[in-house]
């Protein structure tokens, strides 16, 4: 009985690894196929003759996008936009969410439930429903095709997740320890900095990672509220990339771009897997 269970767990373990990593291996393999190989057809999994050319090309050549203006577009510029927009949105969103979650976890005030319900409602909001009105408003306010034009909606849509995750974390913090430290002679600033900040930091950090993932992944707003690489992020840029031959999708280049935008995600996951899992489940389940 025990032995049978252990075998089952092993098989399950391998199946999960296969499920999670196989498509990633496929896209990596594709990124090492030469453009020539994919243009004649290359149905086998591994490249016939592995090459680094796609990676070189992605850095050297300008990305030719299907932009209406026909302007040459850079993958690098899109990558820069993605990093800039995601990081700024993350920092601002986490600051606002920390204030709100602190109030929700620590203070008694009217409208607490309302704030949490509002956050939940917004988390479920169909983003596409806002594309039209936002497009209209942003063109009027000069926010269309700018960094703030994406940062503002990204903040709004990541705040609910950040507030829920953080308030779940903050509820677990023994706030009395702050007073205990004060009784022991610490000033209130010292008590806050030495006691509360170290306890709250992992939660804040987790919320930041989840927020960053959202902004890095976002697609609908990125294709609707931008028109050039002045603000277009990588997912949007990739979707507009047609390559030199419009009748033959640029498999190898797109696979390479895919690998490059996935790298930050993999690095973050490798470093912080435990925190991410805690954040995802505490926000959703313990609510």
């Amino acid at each position, binding site marked *: 009985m025990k032995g049978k269970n252990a075998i089952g767990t092993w098989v399950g373990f391998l199946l999960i690894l296969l499920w999670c990593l196989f498509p*990633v291996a496929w896209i990596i393999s594709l990124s090492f196929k030469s453009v020539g190989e*994919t243009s004649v057809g290359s*149905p086998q999994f591994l490249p016939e003759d592995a090459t680094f050319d796609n990676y070189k090309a992605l850095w050297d050549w300008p990305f030719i996008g299907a932009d209406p203006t026909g302007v040459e577009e850079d993958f690098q510029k899109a990558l820069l936009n993605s990093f800039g927009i995601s990081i700024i949105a993350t920092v601002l969103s986490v600051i606002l969410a920390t204030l709100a979650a602190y109030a929700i976890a620590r203070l008694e005030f009217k409208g607490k439930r309302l*704030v949490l319900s509002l956050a939940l409602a917004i988390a479920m909001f169909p983003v596409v429903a806002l594309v039209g009105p936002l497009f209209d408003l942003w063109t009027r306010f000069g926010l269309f095709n700018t960094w703030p034009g994406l940062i503002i909606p990204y903040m*709004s849509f990541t705040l609910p997740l950040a507030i829920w995750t953080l308030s779940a974390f903050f509820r677990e913090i023994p706030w009395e320890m702050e007073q205990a430290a004060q009784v022991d002679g610490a000033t209130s600033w010292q008590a806050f900095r030495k006691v509360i900040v170290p306890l709250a930091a992992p939660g804040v950090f987790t919320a930041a990672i989840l927020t960053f993932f959202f902004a890095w992944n976002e697609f609908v707003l990125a294709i609707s509220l931008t028109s050039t690489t002045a603000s277009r992020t990588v997912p949007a840029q990739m979707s507009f990339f047609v390559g030199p031959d419009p009748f033959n999708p640029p498999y190898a280049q797109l696979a390479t771009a895919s690998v490059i935008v996935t790298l930050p995600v993999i690095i973050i996951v490798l470093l912080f897997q435990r925190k991410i*899992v805690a954040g995802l489940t505490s926000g959703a389940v313990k609510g």
Partner: protein
Amino acid sequence: MSTTLQRPPADVSAKPAVSDRSKAENKLGLTLVAPAVVMMLLVTAWPMGQALYLSLFRYRLTAPDDREFIGIDNYVTVLTDSLFWRDTWNTVLIMVVTVAVELVIGFAFAMVMHRIIFARGLMRTSILIPYGIITVVSAFAWQFAFSLNNGFVNAWFSWLPWIAEDTNWFGDHWHAMFAIMVSEIWKTTPFMALLLLAGLSQVSEDMLEAAQVDGATWWQRLWKVILPNMRAAIMVAVLFRALDAYRIFDNIYIMTRGAQDTESISFLTYRQVIEQMQLGLGSALSVLLFLSVLLLAWLIVKLFRVDLASARGEG
């Protein structure tokens, strides 16, 4: 006696002191949540109000001077168009199939992860990779896998009745829908598994052991002990994933651009607003999309609540 007479004023002065404190706390609380609330409303409530207003007009961005109040005509146009209903059907079908498959596979994954005592870090890392990968990338990966000339699917699975060496996956409706759903299921099953794992860890081991001692089979323990005790976690997972699947856009945009009748409601809305510049009509679609999400959320919560009550009756 004189001391008792002196007390009341002290009490009177104590009361406002307490309410002053709670008033101050109330004020601080509101001040701290205000920026987040304003920010959330700025990009949702305000544009949604704008959409509600615009949906009552015939309004095309290409001809802004032709804007004309037409009442509910846009809604009539949308609701009487068969395209709207076909797209709604596609969206509901994708949602039901993907959530059902994800629930089963996700639960199996959660059971394995719950039992595993080795390589937990590796397990957690790999399960988070599909979650973290951007949807556009996962859509490309699967599109290429199903591709006629460059994909391995036809070559590997041509022994299946439905698949041949030359199956053009994006050439007909059902094959294309299948490919879209595979991509969606691959990416989001791990998230489902994580939520279910959290629920699973809340099921008491004592109860399971008691059931085992009483001679309950594995199957009985699953249905009578594990699942009823995880109902809240299952509901949260289904609710989150269903609403997420209902908004499906990225996968379809990348894999078919709506060809072969694979368009979803989100895609239709996007096309009306951004490609056709039909702000009036598109806003009506936005409002309908929003309302249907609310309805869906309400239905799921209702469905599980009924389930909860009946299960409690049994127990």
